[in-house]
């Protein structure tokens, strides 16, 4: 299967302090792909590179099979994009904005736009500038969905919105995906929301990709272990050691957080004279926090 977005060895620099380094991303066609990272980690910059709005220093970006930014004029018509900040003319009405947008997209779906106006309870006669934050977000989603793209790129689409609006927006996105089989690339730091809908997750920090994996693999491969009698040096473990610290109260026990874990790997510890007393499941948020912590500690040690 082809990737809807494929990025190889991407480098980008903005000023002295921010750079994207060695970025590789693979967004499978048809995936709902969650792009996680703290503020300032490079999510929005990556999205702008994917859309061909910025030019990389080096590396390759392919979107829907075509190279970016060279072909961005051809590709943008097939991408529904919702930026972090709405950028529409505040003096136009909802209806005027929809008609304006429709004129640019040959695949524009009038029926869907009409259905979403109703579903989102938007009033066509209202001025954009007078809409609430939630209504603005809904209109942005309406515009992105009605252009019938094969790829949706959403930059924090539900950030700062109330739960009812978030729910309406997510339901509309899911309905769209079940009807059209489109690919969704969605950046957010609302981890629980992504945990529900995404089947792929990537985590970014400080301009670098920390991990990219199918959701189930990431969730079920990240565990907290209580380990007894572990030697100080661990050689070639079959899993990834993210963090390791002595358990509260000292003794021989240690808390480990590991990645790429599979059932049965406890036997590795027996082989080195240690034992695992407990294997504790982590949810996506806990796993995300541990991944970031391990990444940052690894950097400061270097």
């Amino acid at each position: 299967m082809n990737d809807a977005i494929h990025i190889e060895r991407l480098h980008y620099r903005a000023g002295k302090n921010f750079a994207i380094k060695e970025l590789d991303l693979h967004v499978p066609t048809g995936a709902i792909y969650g792009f996680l990272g703290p503020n300032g980690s490079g999510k929005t910059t990556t999205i702008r590179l994917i859309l061909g709005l910025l030019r990389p220093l080096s590396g390759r970006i392919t979107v829907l099979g075509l190279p970016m930014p060279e072909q961005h004029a051809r590709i943008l018509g097939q991408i529904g994009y919702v930026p972090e900040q709405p950028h529409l003319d505040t003096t136009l009405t909802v209806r005027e904005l929809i008609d304006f947008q429709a004129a640019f997209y040959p695949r524009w779906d009038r029926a869907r736009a009409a259905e979403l106006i109703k579903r989102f309870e938007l009033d066509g006669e209202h001025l954009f500038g007078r809409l609430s934050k939630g209504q603005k977000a809904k209109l942005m989603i309406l515009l992105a969905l009605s252009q019938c793209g094969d790829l949706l790129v959403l930059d924090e689409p539900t950030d700062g919105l109330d739960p009812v609006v978030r729910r309406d927006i997510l339901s509309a996105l899911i309905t769209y995906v079940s009807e059209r089989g489109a690919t969704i690339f969605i950046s957010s730091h609302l981890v629980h929301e992504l945990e529900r809908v995404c089947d792929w997750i990537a985590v970014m920090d400080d301009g670098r990709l920390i991990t990219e994996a199918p959701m189930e693999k990431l969730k079920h491969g990240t565990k907290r272990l209580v380990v007894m009698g572990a030697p100080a040096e661990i050689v070639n473990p079959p899993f990834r050691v993210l963090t390791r610290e002595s358990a509260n109260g000292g003794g021989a026990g240690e808390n480990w957080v590991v990645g790429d874990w599979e059932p049965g790997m406890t036997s590795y510890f027996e082989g080195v004279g240690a034992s695992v007393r407990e294997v504790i499941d982590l949810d996506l948020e806990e796993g995300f926090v541990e991944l970031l912590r391990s990444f940052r500690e690894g950097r400061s040690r270097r």
Partner: protein
Amino acid sequence: MFHGIDPRSPIPLYVQIAERVRLAIATGTLGSAAPLPSVRQLAAELRINPATVIQAYKDLEAQGFVEIRHGAGTFVRELAPGRRARERSQQAVALVRKLLADARRSGVSLAELQRALETELGARTT
């Protein structure tokens, strides 16, 4: 039927959904030939990936509980006599196992658990 589906649980969502449907079939909430919600409808309602719902329905089909008729929907199959009852006792075993695991984790002894169970049952029947 799908109330309380928990995306944070270590049990994958498709497994949770399939379990709920199996329980509904076992208890008769879903009778023979009853339709399951469409993939699109259930995914939008639970705000989960449509692929997750498809996976759950496929698993249910492989286990013989439902039949996926393309273009028409997913329907509960006629079950062999005794299968509902068997499925219910399996559900009961699963519930007890979960209770025992929870008790062990929170340090409640078996004797205490048994006493609490008897008290509760007594309170229900009187």
